[in-house]
């Protein structure tokens, strides 16, 4: 009996232990390594930095660490500007996503019930097709001689080719396009649950539709607004593909900077320092997001 309970206990313990261990080794440990390497010196070697750890030389290990790379980050204002610009672009994009996403989510929530599942599927469907391909599609549209120019010239709105590609505007369009499902779905989830009689009660009590929207609908949709905004803002700050393909050379974004330090300059320690910088920028929104998500799931209990 005790033997069996012991085996049962052990096998039950495996359920959390296996994924825990996996994430510990392949998610947590790599972070510590990034931190360590961000504090090391570059070397002309393969890999191009001094060894990560040697047990024989623990004192040497600590003494070799320094903040050289971070000092470099502060000296060259390129990184500072890239960080500010990333946060700005992500924030503006999130705002645009809210403006575009809310009417869509609201329309979906007000649609007759039998169409709602179909509308949700239609929002998700583009997400299943490749992200890269969807961004690539915009290149052909936004090119100076591209489809957007052709259409606008044909209907006589403009005479000169539009030069949108390789500007920040193109990045905004790309982010809004690619992240729209992540904004619409959480918004829809909260708006759909909303009790319609609340709005009727507000109207009955003399509130105008516009005022009811701001005093009833928006506050009640807040959980969805927060979840959707975080879900878009956090990855957008570190976005690489969109600024790279649509943004051109003058669009500064930190994810792109990291990529070029790593792939073009082969400065791994500096790339790690940039990664840590990016992480510091995102740690607060990530913690908030985790709490929001955990609370949402616990609420089912």
């Amino acid at each position: 009996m005790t033997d069996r309970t012991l085996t049962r206990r052990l096998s039950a313990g495996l359920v959390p232990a296996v994924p825990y261990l996996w994430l510990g080794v392949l998610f947590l440990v790599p972070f510590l390594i990034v931190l360590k390497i961000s504090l090391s010196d570059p070397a002309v070697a393969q890999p191009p930095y001094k060894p990560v750890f040697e047990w024989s030389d623990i004192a040497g290990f600590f003494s070799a660490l320094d903040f050289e790379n971070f000092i470099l980050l502060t000296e060259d204002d390129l990184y500072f500007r890239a960080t500010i610009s990333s946060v700005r672009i992500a924030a503006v994009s999130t705002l645009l996503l809210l403006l575009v996403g809310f009417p869509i989510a609201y329309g979906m929530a007000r649609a007759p019930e039998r169409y709602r599942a179909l509308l949700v599927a239609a929002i998700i469907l583009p997400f299943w097709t490749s992200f890269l391909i969807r961004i690539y599609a915009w290149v052909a549209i936004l090119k100076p001689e591209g489809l957007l120019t052709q259409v606008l010239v044909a209907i006589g709105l403009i005479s000169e080719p539009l030069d949108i590609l390789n500007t920040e505007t193109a990045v905004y369009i790309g982010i809004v396009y690619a992240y729209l499902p992540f904004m619409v779905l959480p918004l829809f989830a909260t708006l759909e649950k909303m009790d319609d009689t609340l709005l009727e009660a507000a109207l009955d009590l003399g509130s105008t539709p516009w005022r009811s929207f701001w005093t009833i609908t928006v506050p009640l949709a807040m959980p969805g607004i927060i979840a959707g905004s975080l879900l878009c803002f956090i990855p957008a700050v570190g976005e690489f593909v969109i600024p790279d393909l649509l943004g051109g050379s003058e669009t500064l974004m930190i994810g792109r900077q990291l990529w070029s330090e790593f792939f073009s300059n082969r400065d791994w320690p500096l790339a790690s320092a940039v990664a840590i910088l990016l992480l510091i920028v995102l740690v607060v929104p990530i913690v908030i997001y985790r709490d929001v998500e955990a609370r949402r799931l616990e609420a089912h209990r």
Partner: protein
Amino acid sequence: MTMRRLSVFNVTSLVIGFAFLYLPILLLVIYSFNASRLVTVWGGFSTHWYGALFRNEALMEAAWVTLRVAFLSATLATLLGTLAALALARYGRFPGRTLFTGMVYAPMVMPEVITGLSLLLFFVAVGFDRGFWTITLAHTTLTMCFVTVVVQSRLMTFDRSLEEAAMDLGAPPLRTFFSVTLPLIAPSIVAGFLLAFTLSMDDLVIASFNTGPGATTLPIKIYSAVRLGLSPEVNAASAILIGIVTVGVISATLLSKRSVLRSRRNSH
């Protein structure tokens, strides 16, 4: 409940919203049948680029690598993610739970450049040769978190008394899991697998960091082609991928609808 009504504003925002979502994809598919080498100038209908695509061995090889990575990593991720979901939904407060939920939620929003870089540095540090397996392990780590969330939300809405009823009727915990819990959460596990598969197929950044000789995936290939300018072959490849996904999603929807209809018919 009161009747919900769609206003003109609602309908307009839906129409514009969905047009915005679908027009670029539609244009891409249409222009994949363009005879002209100039991607944005219509030169008549042709399937020329599809032929060229299938004769492009490097692209075909990359597609094969991508499928293998996606299948393997999605399978592993489904297994690990389901275990993690069970741990979060059924084990209450186990030691280190806060760290665990942190490790589950963070990779989903973490910029891919960070995840990709950190995994690469890890593989280099432990002396693991970069290639097929490093991409697979990296994708498993990322996608298992998505599987966890999908399965966990199903487990949270799951009526616990069903499991208690099975035990009450004499089924030990493991048999209860396989005869009651698993069949009921199976749809969410399948959804999690498909999500993991798609995310893996789709990933450029993490794969770029962790790739090695002989393990070039389709997104890496497409990305380098796009960097050199628009390519009609990429248009054709994209159209095929879009086609596969559309057919897959529609048939999955129809299948689930038919099983609902069948169970309804049985009742009469």
